[in-house]
């Protein structure tokens, strides 16, 4: 056989040679011709940068620069390694395990593992979407995001050097991501990586891939489903939708979609519209699927973020639950059965043991679900979900309305009186809620303390499992809060997707110069230390101060639950433009990529840096110039780990809530180590010690009061103009005084010249610098003569990359 192939090859080569590139296959035997990808000549749209499709080591030097300044900090969650049969190994006290790995490297390994899990969730989601959309619409769906967006896929261009024209072009991007994921995952195996620094470099690489996968996923669904972009009705003009447990009209049949992958929900919406049922049936959702459902079908309602999922299911508001992927409770079938709610699973990643009925007659499937013969079914073709879900909801709703689901007052009293304050629920609660005391008060008729726990509760349900009297604690709390729950109604702007290039043109300069003091990205899950109000407060505080506040995922939902004294929510009181004072719902988890995209476009559109295959330079630009800060106040999932790590590699710092310390790793700067803070002036190569701007890449705060000034602090950048620095310093000092009651202890570090000081306090602060810091002041000219860490130079061109120095001195 081999000889035959060799002979055929020779014949083929000969013919090809003779015909000078024209292959004549006539007369050839045993030849198989396989045509792979046809390489089309691509128009030259931008010169290729130094790092297209970076591999594991390509950006390692950049990672090491970050890690040198922002050293990995580890707080182990567990002292042991249990991953191989040498173990369990006790690594406490930074001991080595049997394989030789030390505790710190093991923590880096676990961080890489978390980022892997997060990144694969987004990549799997993107691949799944691509399959479905190509099957439904073909691979030639144009990537056309409207007239205001020319840089359609900034991360794709930046990382892979590809400019996608159709959704099919993303196949190559996903191929690259998946290949890198496999190589990075390989490094997790026992006997592979052993270095802390390299584990972190790999985690940063995984975070970058995660950001890319998210962009792919969102652009595919925007292009295929025509979700909001820069076409009419998109961007700042997207509609408002209702948010909250109280928004669902339970007099109608209710379908509740949970997860992150929109095609099944889109099919439900299509079915409703095609059959004129859009006013007859309620379509609501939880978590990111709900964002994307409202982007497709604005009549849909956002029932809640992840934190209310357990309670929304237990409340029994859904006549049918449709799950797709990610952030679905593992016990969804068990919970739904208690409220007689059938479940339709639609994704091979979350099958929940249900029988595959994809190709059964819808009549039979609906009948089985309505009659309760099965707890749920699996329908893996999203285009077959709508009919079954809608018909089931319509038929089962009248039956379910006759059932008692919410506990009555008598039952409530029974349970609260049964509690004897053993404290087991508190020990099981992730945030240590003191439930027993509230139960005791409820037993005497005062239900307010119990009702107040509703919003602080993270909705996990661990308390119910440990109660010796089997008190349904979550239900009891919900019952106490029911009068408020029924009224929980807010409004959110639909997720708008990418920021427009034209908006970037308007705000690029103010952001880089610092006169728009920062872009605050309020993102991530709902594992808050103290309830959803923090999401509202963080958003309001910065939007009112003319920062640009962009939101995604659960925090975008939770921020909409609260209102001002006039009864208006933040999306109603603030505009939706990417501009100072905006409160902008970017969309679901995968829409986070557009926040990266906005930062990248500032470098590209405003600063005219080349994007193509040029990650390191753009990340350096963002770290030095773009005053952006992420806030994942309730970060819970592995996706949140990979999202934050992706932001970090691009030079965007993040603040997490106290639960964020359980991710084990932070990236923290040490301002007192002078050599950690060196930066180069790209004009001439002069190296400067500079202020800690930003001081950290990833840091946890204990309370929202502490977080607010920290977020403002992490918006300082070495490139700030004096006017911009003065504005940023004003907010940092003001927030510190407002929430902590005093001046920040490190404000002087950010002063380079007199004009950096807030105008209203300039004299007072100069005096303090003189008295408390020993700085020399020329009072006649009101100038600082001596004291600052470095001089202010309006033309300073900061970089961390020596290769970008234009002329070396």
């Amino acid at each position, binding site marked *: 056989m081999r000889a035959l192939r060799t002979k055929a090859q020779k014949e083929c080569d000969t013919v090809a040679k003779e015909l000078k590139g024209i292959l004549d296959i006539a007369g050839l035997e045993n030849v198989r011709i396989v045509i792979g990808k046809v390489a089309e000549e691509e128009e030259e749209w931008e010169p290729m940068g130094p790092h297209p499709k970076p591999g594991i080591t390509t950006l390692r030097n950049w990672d090491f620069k970050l890690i040198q300044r922002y*050293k990995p*900090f*580890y*707080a*182990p*969650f*567990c*002292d*042991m390694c249990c991953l191989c049969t040498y173990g369990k190994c*006790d*690594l*406490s*006290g*930074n001991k080595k395990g049997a394989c030789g790995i030390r*505790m*710190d490297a093991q923590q880096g390994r676990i961080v890489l593992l978390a980022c892997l899990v997060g990144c694969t969730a987004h990549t799997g989601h993107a691949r799944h979407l691509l399959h479905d959309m190509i099957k439904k619409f073909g691979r030639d769906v144009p990537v056309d995001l409207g007239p205001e967006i020319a840089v359609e896929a900034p991360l794709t261009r930046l990382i892979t050097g590809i400019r996608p024209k159709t959704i099919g072009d993303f196949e190559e991007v996903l191929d690259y991501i998946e290949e890198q994921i496999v190589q990075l995952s390989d490094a997790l195996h026992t006997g592979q990586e052993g270095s802390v620094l390299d584990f972190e470099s790999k985690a940063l690489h995984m975070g970058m891939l995660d950001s890319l996968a998210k962009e792919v996923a969102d652009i595919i669904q925007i292009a295929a489903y025509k979700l909001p972009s820069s076409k009419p009705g998109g961007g700042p003009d997207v509609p408002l939708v209702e948010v909250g447990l109280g928004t669902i009209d339970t007099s109608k049949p209710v379908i509740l979609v949970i997860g992150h992958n929109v095609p099944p929900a889109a099919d439900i919406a299509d079915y409703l519209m095609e059959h004129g049922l859009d006013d007859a049936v309620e379509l609501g959702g939880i978590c990111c699927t709900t964002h994307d459902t409202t982007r497709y079908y604005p009549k849909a309602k956002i029932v809640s973020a992840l934190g209310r999922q357990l309670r929304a299911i237990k409340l029994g508001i859904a006549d049918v639950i449709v799950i797709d992927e990610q952030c679905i409770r593992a016990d969804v079938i068990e919970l739904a059965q208690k409220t007689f709610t059938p479940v339709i699973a639609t994704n091979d990643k979350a099958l929940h043991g249900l029988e595959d009925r994809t190709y059964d007659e819808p009549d039979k499937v609906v009948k089985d679900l309505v009659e309760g013969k099965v707890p749920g079914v699996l329908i893996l073709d999203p285009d077959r979900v709508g009919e079954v879900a809608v018909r089931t909801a319509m038929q089962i709703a009248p039956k379910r309305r006759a059932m008692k689901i919410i506990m009555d007052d008598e039952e409530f009293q029974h349970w609260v009186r049964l509690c004897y*304050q053993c*404290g087991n629920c508190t*020990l*099981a609660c*992730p*945030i*240590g809620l*003191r439930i*027993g*005391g509230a139960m005791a008060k409820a037993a005497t008729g005062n239900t307010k303390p119990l009702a107040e726990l509703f919003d602080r509760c993270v909705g996990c349900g661990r308390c119910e499992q*440990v109660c010796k009297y089997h008190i349904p604690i979550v239900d009891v709390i919900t019952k106490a809060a029911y009068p408020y729950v029924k009224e929980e109604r807010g409004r959110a702007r639909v997720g708008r997707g990418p920021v427009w290039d034209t908006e970037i043109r308007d705000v690029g300069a103010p952001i880089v110069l610092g006169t728009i003091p920062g872009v605050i990205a309020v993102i991530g899950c709902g594992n808050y*230390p103290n309830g959803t109000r923090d999401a509202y407060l963080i958003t309001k505080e910065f939007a009112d101060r003319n920062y640009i506040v962009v939101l995604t995922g659960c925090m975008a939902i939770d921020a909409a639950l609260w209102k001002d004294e006039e009864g208006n929510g933040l999306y109603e009181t603030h505009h939706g433009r990417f501009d100072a004072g905006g409160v902008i719902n970017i969309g679901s988890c995968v829409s986070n990529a557009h926040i990266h995209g906005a930062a990248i476009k500032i470098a590209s559109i405003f600063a005219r840096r080349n994007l193509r295959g040029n990650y390191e330079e753009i990340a350096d630009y963002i770290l030095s110039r773009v005053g952006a800060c992420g806030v994942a106040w309730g970060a819970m999932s592995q996706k949140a780990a990979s999202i934050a790590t992706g932001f970090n590699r691009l030079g965007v710092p993040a603040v997490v809530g*106290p*639960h964020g*310390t*359980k991710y*084990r790793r*932070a990236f*923290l700067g*040490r301002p*007192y180590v002078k050599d950690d803070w060196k930066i180069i002036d790209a004009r001439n190569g002069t190296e400067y010690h500079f202020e800690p701007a930003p001081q*950290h890449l990833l*840091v*946890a*705060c*204990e*309370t929202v*009061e*502490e977080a607010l000034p*920290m977020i403002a602090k992490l918006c300082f950048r070495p490139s700030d103009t004096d006017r911009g620095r003065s504005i940023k310093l004003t907010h940092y000092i003001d927030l510190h005084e407002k*929430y*902590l*009651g*005093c001046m*920040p*202890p490190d404000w002087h570090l950010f002063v380079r010249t007199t004009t950096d000081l807030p105008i209203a306090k300039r004299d007072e602060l100069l005096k303090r610098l003189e008295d408390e810091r020993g700085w020399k002041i020329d009072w006649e000219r009101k100038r600082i003569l001596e004291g600052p860490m470095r001089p202010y130079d309006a033309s300073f061109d900061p970089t961390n990359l020596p290769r970008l120095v234009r002329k070396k001195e």
Partner: protein
Amino acid sequence: MVCEPFDIANVPGPAALGMVAAPETMAAVVSSAKRPLLVVGSEILRDEFYVDIAIEIGKKGIPIAATGHSIKGFLQKGYTENVSIINLHELTNYLRDPEWQGLDGGGNYDVVIFFGIIYYYASQMLSCIRNFCIKPLMRAISIDWYFHPNAAMSFPNIRPKDEDKYKEMLKKFVESIRR
């Protein structure tokens, strides 16, 4: 005496589950420390009594790191003598650096006392200290009303209905510090 961690599944490993100690025992550790540090979190603000306890400890010459937004309690009481504002993550990062010169420039610390910090945040920082502040050895103790398995010494879990007993323990702790 061994107790359940306040977050019951927070069992870090064989070397953790530090000792439940009496106030006098913990005070003896503080008394013999060369450079002790009191690390205070925002939970002290739930009752003026706890701010007063922190101030009493501060008055014994033990510097105070005010983390979270706990500084507000000290400002309200007009006590800022040896109180420094710092983020707990930052502080713990500095503590693991033997070269750090401390909040007052006098060098790093050998005993840190955690007080009034959200349980799970404190637990993670105590884990860092236990695992990485080992050369030289730093000991971390907790006088919160939670049992902290990552602390070298800790009070047991105390129920809200026993808060008065807890307050007595804190008073005893302060009284027993000899400096």
